[in-house]
């Protein structure tokens, strides 16, 4: 098994045939990415991290409402551009101004 820590911190139980059958019979949904669509298309600006300025304080990770900042095992951080909505909270809160918002 791959080092889970490095690849992803997301917990998404695999949908088995039983849960998929329930989906057709009852008004339920199953956990998955993109329940609101491809939310990266909402973005006007994207956050870009300057790793040289980053002090690995993980404040941006703690404050991101979308869980689109990946916290690696060494506490360095990486943006998940598939779903980041470009709110800019990470850039606003970064104490070293290591994150810049740049036009798409």
């Amino acid at each position: 098994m791959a080092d889970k820590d490095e690849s992803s911190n997301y917990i998404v139980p695999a949908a088995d045939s039983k849960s998929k059958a329930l989906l057709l019979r009852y008004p339920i949904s199953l956990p998955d990415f993109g329940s609101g669509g491809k939310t990266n298309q909402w973005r006007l600006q994207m956050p870009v991290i300057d790793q040289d300025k980053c002090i690995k304080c993980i404040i941006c990770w703690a404050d991101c409402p979308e869980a689109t900042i990946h916290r690696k095992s060494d506490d360095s951080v990486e943006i998940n551009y598939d779903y980041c909505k470009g709110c800019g909270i990470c850039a606003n809160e970064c104490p070293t101004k290591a994150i810049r918002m740049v036009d798409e």
Partner: protein
Amino acid sequence: MESPERGQLGTSGSASQADEHMIIKDIPKEEKWLPGNAACPGCGLSLGLRLMAKAIEHPVVVMPASCGSVVQGGWPKSSASFPLLNIAMAAAGSAASGVSEALEALGKKGTVVAWAGDGGTADIGLQALSGAAERGENIIFVMYDNEAYMNTGIQRSSSTPHGAWTTTTPEGKREFKKEVAHIMMAHNLEYMATASVAFPTDFIEKLRKAEAHKGTKFIQLFSPCPPGWRIDYSKSIEVGKLAVQAGVWILYEYENGKVSISPISRPYLDAKKRRPLKDYLSLQGRFANVDEREATEIEKSVVEKWRFLSRFM
């Protein structure tokens, strides 16, 4: 603008106290609130759910009609990687009671969290919550307070503060905010607290404390909402921090009849240490109509709230 008390060295000023408190690095890495949800960019409620799902290992969430019902996304997907029951707006307290009893009867694990907006708590839903609290149902009731009915297009609730613009208070709300936490104090809960999404470690600590208690637990969570508060998407954490620094939002716990001000809010017991109220108001378009006289009224209500709490310290 980074406040020292939010830094990575703990939530409290003194070293010995800092040791007892969670630090940012202690926040679990696992993400059970998944990306690509339908919340607006910068949504405080979305961050709140993400942090709740980190604090509690097996949350079973009951959610009345609110933005919360919408942000989980559309069928057949859900952004909640935990069980979540959507329920009628008035019913969070009663439905959560039923789920809690059912889990116990079936011997299944899970911590029942009722996750309701301010409308679903302070107005529609207050009765069911009061009933659950009086019966001592084993639930954590989180009122995420974005201070209006956001999901239906920003109408005033009883939890909207004085002076705030909403579509039903176009010139600013005349009445003052209903203090739901004070109502819950009168229910003699084992554990009650206020928290803010702008202070993640404090919120997680309080959820875990709540989980360790039996009976009904109540947490009122300050949850900034960019479109409803007319702030930039990037400012929801900043405005949450300012609310605490200005003393408008007080972080505290209420246990065994005693109020204890949380370390982050403790400096602001001293009114002189508070940030000027106008710093908090001027960041938000919803307070654009607040004039000098009204600002003084709001200031008075802040002083009165601290005075009220000090009676229980």
